[in-house]
């Protein structure tokens, strides 16, 4: 019998999420006595991608912020999806991480079942379906790039499920600064070094002009031949040199007096248990 076309949309309750953490956070709010509930970790990011002659170059900064504090100075924003597909994520850190992991495992299963290499358009479709189903509640702004049998592709996927194929792209809080560099320097069919330099420049502009982006720059080059994940491509000049070793040899601190007190121990109970050794 003919099924009328129906879009299966989830029933949204006033709380919207069915994640148990939200109920917990609501309950915790009362306990905080006016103070703010814990905020989700946002990446406050600059990510960019460029299609060049032989493939795709993706770039990202490495700062993850939690309000005004830098929570992670070396966070990896370029996620592995498939051997020929990588994804940069901006927005809520947990959402981008889990969404890309889910996508990656689904594509691996598909590859094993069908015996085919995954295509970027398939990854894009899966992401679009999933994000649309959640109506923007999953805060993931993603840049998908890769090389497959149909060519070199770069796609942007928004949190509401909108998709766009583009030759160059920047997303995140530093996107406007990065886009300026990309708009100025992009040409179709760039050479590899020029493309890497363009993406580096775009991320650098984002880092300089946006407070939410900073630290190092990661670059990922995907071509037919393989993937070159350069982490970090450029390190921040503002690096502290921590020794990370805090062991001091005996005698570093001068000993002024020494008193040895032997501890008197008395045996309270003694029991012997035979071990079964076959």
């Amino acid at each position, binding site marked *: 019998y003919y099924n*009328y*076309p*129906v*879009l299966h*949309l989830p029933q949204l309750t006033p709380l919207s999420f069915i994640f148990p953490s939200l109920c917990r956070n609501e309950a915790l709010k009362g306990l905080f006595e006016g103070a703010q509930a814990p905020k989700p970790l946002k990446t406050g990011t600059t990510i960019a991608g460029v299609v060049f002659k032989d493939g795709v170059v993706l770039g990202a900064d490495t700062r993850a912020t939690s309000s005004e504090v830098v929570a992670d100075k070396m966070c990896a924003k370029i996620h592995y999806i498939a051997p020929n597909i990588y994804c940069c994520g*901006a*927005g809520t850190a947990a959402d981008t991480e889990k969404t890309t992991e889910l996508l990656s495992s689904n594509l691996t299963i598909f590859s094993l079942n069908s015996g085919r290499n995954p295509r970027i358009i398939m990854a894009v479709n899966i992401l*679009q379906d999933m*994000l*649309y189903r959640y*109506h*923007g509640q999953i805060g993931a*702004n993603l840049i998908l790039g890769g090389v497959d049998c149909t060519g070199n592709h770069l796609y942007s996927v*928004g*949190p*509401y*499920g*909108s*998709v*766009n194929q*583009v030759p160059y792209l920047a*997303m*995140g*809080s530093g*996107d406007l600064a990065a886009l300026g560099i990309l708009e100025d320097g992009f040409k179709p069919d760039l050479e590899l070094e020029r493309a890497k330099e363009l993406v580096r420049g775009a991320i650098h502009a984002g880092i300089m002009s946006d407070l939410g982006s900073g630290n190092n720059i990661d670059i990922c080059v995907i071509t037919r031949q393989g993937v070159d994940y350069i982490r970090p491509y450029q390190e921040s000049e503002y690096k502290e040199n921590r020794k990370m070793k805090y062991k001091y040899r005996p005698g570093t601190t001068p000993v002024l007096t020494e008193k040895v007190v032997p501890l008197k121990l008395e045996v309270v109970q003694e029991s012997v248990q035979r071990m079964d050794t076959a």
Partner: protein
Amino acid sequence: MEKHCVDSEVKGVSTGTTILAAIFDGGVVIGSDSRASIGGEYVSSRTINKVIQVHDRIFCCMAGSLADAQAVTKAAKFHLSFHSVQMESPPLVIAAASVLKELCYKNKEELQAGFITAGWDKKKGPQVYVVSLGGMVVSQPFTIGGSGSTYIYGYVDAKYKPNMSRDECLQFATNALALAMGRDNVSGGVAHLAVITEKGVEHVVVPGNKLPKFHDE
């Protein structure tokens, strides 16, 4: 990207657009601009494609929330393809309009997307259907939609003639789009047009600088 949002009623990327379709002698022209914006302030894409092919001779123009419109046209494409396999013949344009209407009407609380469907079929020849936000379907010889359409109602009402030639109709559509893009801030970019006839489909893209100029300084 909250800084770009949230005053507009459409959440996320909106197509905030100008779309139109018009019947000429032997076919139909369907066209749109190519701008996608967020919150009416930030142009998130200058080259978005709003003219989607849902079957060999049937095209759809989307307006409203980009995510909703893309999801609906994907579902519609699937249903039309399935329908055409079951019927063993290409679907009628009214079938495409009905599929879109069914999706828009049944989910009217959650969706914010409107469409213009245009195409050619063997039974009735060239047709244009408008599927509005709430799911109303109306068949018209020509139609305009989107936020930019308000600026060109006068123009299209005055200039449309039934049974135009292909080139006259193409010029009419290009002029209308150019006028709307010139006045509406959320329409712009290039003009995407598709000419659908019994023989096939022809895509025409007019870049921004090649659009007809009307007393522009």
